[in-house]
């Protein structure tokens, strides 16, 4: 098991290095940030000075060496535009994103499992068809469009919830619902289908024959075995959620990582873009490892087969 965890972590580390290298050179291909900061009247020497201050006068290899050695010490660099440490900007933005992401993730997982299980156990009833309908619709409608329609109905027409910005609890409703649109449908579908498979298995039939109560059969015997694939999707949902955060924060003008990411990329604020990409990649890779380890714990077959 230890060997398995070490190998998986090493693989993830290699992937992370790859991402750091790619994003470093990619942002530098995307255009010279100096052009966004100077006026047509700036003199040659001013431009040179600016380049020196930002460290852009050195060769790419040299810049990369400086960057990677700072990064190894946990220094993410300084924003080109705001001239404050990137870690400070992320320290401001990340909590705001988590304030949306954590409630969404919890609600999405609970609701996804509950609705999926209930739909599977009530197969072909109105409830089941309702859940299927919601899931299919949720996967088909674009999240940003749903958010706009929600603003139209709840903010413009009925004026129940505010259309944008941070604030009291009422500011959270529309963004969280929008984010749920990015993760709940997939979750419900997967829980329902794996649950149907498990309910059809021999050990569930045996549990029924033994005369165990229906709720024990479903929530204890069946759900435990059905939860393995939702584990993967719970990790995959992290990716969906990050994409969802970019869209949601930009629609609702929420000062989080997603909004920061779009602004920094368009303004060629290299250190910020690099930092955000690395943080997101660490989160996704970390989730992938956790899932693999969780799999190995739950299912011994994987433990022996993969190492």
């Amino acid at each position, binding site marked *: 098991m230890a060997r398995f965890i070490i190998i998986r972590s090493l693989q993830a580390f290699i992937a992370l290095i790859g991402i750091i290298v790619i994003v470093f050179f990619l942002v530098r291909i995307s*255009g010279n940030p100096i052009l966004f900061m100077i006026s047509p009247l700036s003199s040659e020497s001013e431009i040179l000075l600016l380049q020196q201050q930002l460290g852009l006068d050195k060769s790419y290899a040299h810049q990369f060496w400086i960057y990677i050695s700072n990064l190894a010490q946990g220094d993410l660099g300084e924003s080109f535009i705001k001239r404050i440490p990137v870690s400070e900007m992320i320290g401001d933005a990340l909590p705001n994103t988590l304030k949306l992401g954590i409630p969404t993730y919890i609600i999405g997982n609970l609701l996804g499992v509950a609705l999926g299980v209930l739909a599977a156990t009530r197969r072909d009833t109105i409830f089941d068809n309702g859940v299927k309908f919601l899931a299919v619709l949720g996967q088909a409608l*674009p999240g940003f469009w749903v958010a706009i329609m929600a603003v139209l109905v709840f903010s413009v027409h009925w004026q129940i919830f505010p259309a944008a910005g941070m604030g009291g609890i009422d500011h959270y409703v529309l963004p969280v619902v929008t984010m749920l649109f990015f993760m709940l449908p997939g979750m419900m579908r997967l829980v329902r289908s794996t649950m149907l498979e498990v309910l059809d298995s021999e050990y569930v039939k045996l549990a029924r024959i033994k005369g165990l109560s229906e709720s024990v059969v479903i929530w204890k015997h069946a759900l435990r075995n059905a939860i393995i694939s939702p584990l993967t999707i719970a990790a995959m949902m992290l990716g969906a959620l990050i994409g969802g955060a970019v869209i949601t924060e930009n629609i609702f003008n929420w000062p989080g990582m997603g909004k920061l990411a779009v602004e920094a990329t368009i303004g060629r604020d290299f250190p910020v873009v690099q930092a955000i990409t690395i943080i997101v990649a660490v989160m996704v890779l970390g989730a*992938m490892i956790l899932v693999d380890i969780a799999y190995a714990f739950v299912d011994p077959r994987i433990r022996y087969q993969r190492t």
Partner: protein
Amino acid sequence: MATIIGIKTKREFRGLTRWGRIFRNLGMILPVIVFVVLIFTAIFADLGWIGLPDVGLAPYPYDETSLPDRRMPPAWVEGGSTKHLLGTDTLGRDILSRAIYGARVSLSVSLLAIAITASVGTVLGIISGYAGGRTDAFIMRITDIAMSFPPLLLAILIAVSLGPGFFTVIFALSVLGWAGYARIIRGETLRLRNSDFVAQAQIIGTPSWRIMLRHIFPNILNVLLIGITLAVGAMILAEAMMSYLGIGIPPPMPSWGSMVADGRNDLDRAWWISTFPGILIGLVVLSGNFLGDWIRDKTDPRLRQL
């Protein structure tokens, strides 16, 4: 509860009438109709490509503005007129026409991106699964990288570096999209590699490329087909998202996503600008997903989900 302890209930044995069969296959018939109609309108929006720019299905050119008619509601709403069936946008452009041209952009971008991602992913997946060892490890690490990159951020980066345009969008959508195919196809290939027919082919000395092409590829076709149909929806959504963020096809060329974005500042006085393109996106994604599910149910019950 359909089956308990393996006893089939009556319903599962009952044969289907003709209407029942048609109803059963609505999951295939309706999406195909949607796609045929949309592709037809996209191609015949105007006949400019055979030298007849004035003939076509779109009542107006996509960039014809008419300021007196701006923000005109759809025909059935008070103040609307049959001149503009779905109303007009902030610049007085006909929404129906723009939606028809938008189909051209949205469908061609998504289909091309799918063609690229599916081919690259399939080739890499088969090689990775069949070769195994270091080749496999190498390809899978690259796949890991591609899968842990935030796709939207990379798309924005690519759009700002290459400048917005048709091929930029396709490139941005394709650059990570192959990884999902590579993963699935590799898994299938691993399963097939140990099967008897592959072993027999190896024994008679068939070259590796031939085994991959003639023996493995045909057997992963249905998984690939399911992946492709299900990807139609995802690609349409991704393209719409890019256009919505303003990094898609540059204006005035309409895409459904940018049309939704156009109406976002006019929600309080012109709801129809954002609403109709959004419904179209939903319809296409829904059709793609239904078709994918239908093919999966028909060809590979093992993968059945909903």
